């Protein structure tokens, strides 16, 4: 199941076994019911549209296995988005591409029955056996609403089961009902679907069921009075965002340095105890060093998903999206895209996956194409290294530290560039889909489920480790080989006049005549306007797999004694040949150009892979890579020229 973060895989549904489809509006408790029925891991949440991919699972009903398909949340069977088209197609018996389910379970939030009854009418009109699952009946009672479930079942003519989250009784009752869909009662006449008669049908059904609508949730109303207040709400929003980043960057720091020192001592142990030397170098410097660089970002990823999952399940993310909608509209996007771009500040991958909640395909694509420009956590080590080369830690511009100001400027530049790119893609995007109305439900504030929050964090961490370490591992090994091959024997070195008693001289000679050096020198002319020499070019080529490898590659290239802190070794590096030979390599124009390059370039194969998976074609990742690389090249050349003029 490509749609999940990667933790869960669907058990195969036996051919010939019965398949039930789950249909319901966003926030109707559909995914929670799916989890309860199948015991399968799937994300549940309060943010409208969490389940927009298609999930299948297996449930044990009356002694046999049946398939359960969790269809995307929808307000209507008159589709206006690709997600909704899936629901309409699956429920269409004439649609040959999708297997029509044997029966349908419709989840209806009993607190919003007047609206969701319309969806029920549309499902009933399809003629499939239907069982209604009423959710949040406890909340209905708490908010002084009322519904006679038996009378409701008689009025609509199908079985109705009430299921309350956290209680097994309702799910057990539902399983009994699911054992015999052939015996389900059916309405004698399908309900009308044209708007006029439909309103009458809904009214008559709700009257017959003696439905009394619930009062507005007093807790939600009181909290929203602050959260959505024009002044206080905005302040709370900025405080939340500030706390969000503070938590991700400061709370994660001790865990990050602990992981880092653990890997450093492990690498030291391997280097000291493994023979021969080349194997020690590969394992210690390449494998452990490379993996370590990546694993240090695990605490940030875990915290990010914990916070986003909590905000989402409580119901705050819809409020944040509501507050940000006007700003996002300027970029041609909508409030929900804000959530995706926010996630991209940790990593573009969860950001791109978060775009699934956008109903408009055009908005979704524009957000996906711009998300990699947001300053992700992989850029952080590169920025720290390069800003350290560019500005001294003591430099101050007025009351602000110069280094911190440059860092802030880089984050701002990323965000502004992402919004601009979104605006461009949204402008030139496919408008054939027609005007997609913006609508977003503000669900009542609900307590998050510990289980789904924990699952969300766990799945994100597992997927991060699995996917990214593969790429980092392979890249680091390949780079190590390229930087250390061809191997030079004593005779070669002596013939070249190298002092074989000095390890530094030997490694410098091996590096300068390695395969990597040939590659770097071959691409050197392409980056001449930026002033990059072949050693920087190798770092940039390596960083196309993952940005972090730039730091460890420059470290290896600089033959620094400590690859974790190559700054000192880099400072003293000089240009090797050409008219500027002997002069410092890392001049302000060159460093500034490198920074500009990293702001724009799509140097992350995981992001490319996720773009491929989420868009279903290689076209969009190819476009994203090309436009961002072109931007990176132009901007870095421009910055090199500009800084060269100023300094």
């Amino acid at each position, binding site marked *: 199941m490509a749609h999940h973060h990667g933790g869960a895989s669907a058990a195969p549904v036996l051919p010939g076994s019965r398949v039930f489809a789950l249909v319901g509006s966003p926030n109707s408790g559909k995914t929670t019911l799916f989890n309860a029925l199948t015991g399968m891991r799937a994300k549940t949440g309060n943010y409208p549209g969490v389940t927009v991919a298609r999930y299948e699972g297996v449930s044990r009903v009356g002694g046999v296995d049946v398939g359960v398909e969790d269809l995307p949340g929808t*307000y*209507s069977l*008159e589709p*206006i988005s690709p997600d909704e088209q899936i629901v309409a197609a699956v429920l269409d018996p004439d649609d040959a591409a999708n297997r029509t389910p044997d029966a349908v379970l419709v989840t209806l939030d009993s*607190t*919003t*029955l*007047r*609206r969701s009854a*319309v*969806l029920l009418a549309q499902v009933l009109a399809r003629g499939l056996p239907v069982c209604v699952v009423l959710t949040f009946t406890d909340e209905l009672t708490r908010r002084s609403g009322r519904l006679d479930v038996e009378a409701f079942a008689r009025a609509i003519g199908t079985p109705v089961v009430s299921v309350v989250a956290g209680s097994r009784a309702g799910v057990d009752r539902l399983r009994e009902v699911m054992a015999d869909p052939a015996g389900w009662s059916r309405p004698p006449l399908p309900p009308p679907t*044209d*708007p*006029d008669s*439909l*309103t009458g049908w809904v009214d008559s059904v709700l009257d017959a069921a003696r439905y009394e*609508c*619930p009062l*507005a949730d007093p807790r939600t109303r009181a909290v*929203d009075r602050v959260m*959505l*207040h*024009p*002044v206080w*709400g*905005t302040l709370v929003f900025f405080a939340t965002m500030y706390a969000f980043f503070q938590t991700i960057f400061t709370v994660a720091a001790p865990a990050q340095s602990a992981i880092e020192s653990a890997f450093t001592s492990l690498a030291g142990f391997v280097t000291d105890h493994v023979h021969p030397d080349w194997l020690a170098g590969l394992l210690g410097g390449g494998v452990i060093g490379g993996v370590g660089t990546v694993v240090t970002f695990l605490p940030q990823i875990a915290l990010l998903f914990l916070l986003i999952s909590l905000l989402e399940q409580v119901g705050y993310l819809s409020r944040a999206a*509501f*507050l940000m*909608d*006007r*700003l996002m*509209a300027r970029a041609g996007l909508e*409030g929900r895209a804000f959530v995706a771009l926010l996630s991209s500040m940790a990593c573009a991958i969860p950001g791109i996956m978060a775009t699934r909640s956008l109903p408009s395909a055009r908005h979704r694509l524009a957000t996906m194409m711009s998300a990699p420009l947001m300053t992700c956590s992989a850029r952080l080590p590169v920025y720290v290294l390069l800003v350290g080369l560019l500005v001294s830690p003591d430099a101050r511009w007025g009351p602000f530290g110069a280094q911190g100001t440059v860092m802030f400027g880089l984050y701002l530049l990323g965000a502004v560039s992402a919004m601009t790119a979104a605006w461009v893609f949204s402008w030139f995007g496919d408008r054939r889909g*027609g*005007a997609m*109305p*913006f*609508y*977003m*439900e*503000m669900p009542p504030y609900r307590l998050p489920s510990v289980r789904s929050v924990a699952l969300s964090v766990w799945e994100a961490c597992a997927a991060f480790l699995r996917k990214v370490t593969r790429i980092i591992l392979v890249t680091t090994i390949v780079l190590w080989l390229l930087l250390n091959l061809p191997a030079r024997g004593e005779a070669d070195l002596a013939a070249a006049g190298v002092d074989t008693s000095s390890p530094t001289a030997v490694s410098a000679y091996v590096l300068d005549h390695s395969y990597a050096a040939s590659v770097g020198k071959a691409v050197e002319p392409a980056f001449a306007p930026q002033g990059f020499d072949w050693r920087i070019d190798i770092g940039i080529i390596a960083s196309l797999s993952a940005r972090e490898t730039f730091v460890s590659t420059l470290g290896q290239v600089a033959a620094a004694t400590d690859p974790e802190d190559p700054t000192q070794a880099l400072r003293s590096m000089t240009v090797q040949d050409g008219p500027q030979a002997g002069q410092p390599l890392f001049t302000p124009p060159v460093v500034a150009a490198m920074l500009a390059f990293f702001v724009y370039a799509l140097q992350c194969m995981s992001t490319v892979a996720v773009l491929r998976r989420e868009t279903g074609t290689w076209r969009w990742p190819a476009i994203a890579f090309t436009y961002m690389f072109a931007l990176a090249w132009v901007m870095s050349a421009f910055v090199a020229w500009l800084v060269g003029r100023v300094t």
Partner: protein
Amino acid sequence: MSIRSEAAAATATAPTRTCLADIARGGCVEVVGTAENADPQVARRLFDLGFRPGAHVEVMRRAPLRDPVIFRVADAELALRRAEAALLLVRPA
């Protein structure tokens, strides 16, 4: 679409047309129909979201820059942008 015909009927009786976007915060109105210039798909979706002729709508609150607006309709709270709210014709409840 039959929502349209009701809208037309409403405009025939009431000389001024009021749309939901013009209602101040705290106002309670009844939906009459959708504007003729509304895209049929958008009109249908607004209907499915609960903005049905006869439905009562309460204007809950506006976002800081006055857009979007949260409405209470069909027992749920829903945010719409002004552009969509302008497509809904209403009369005092």
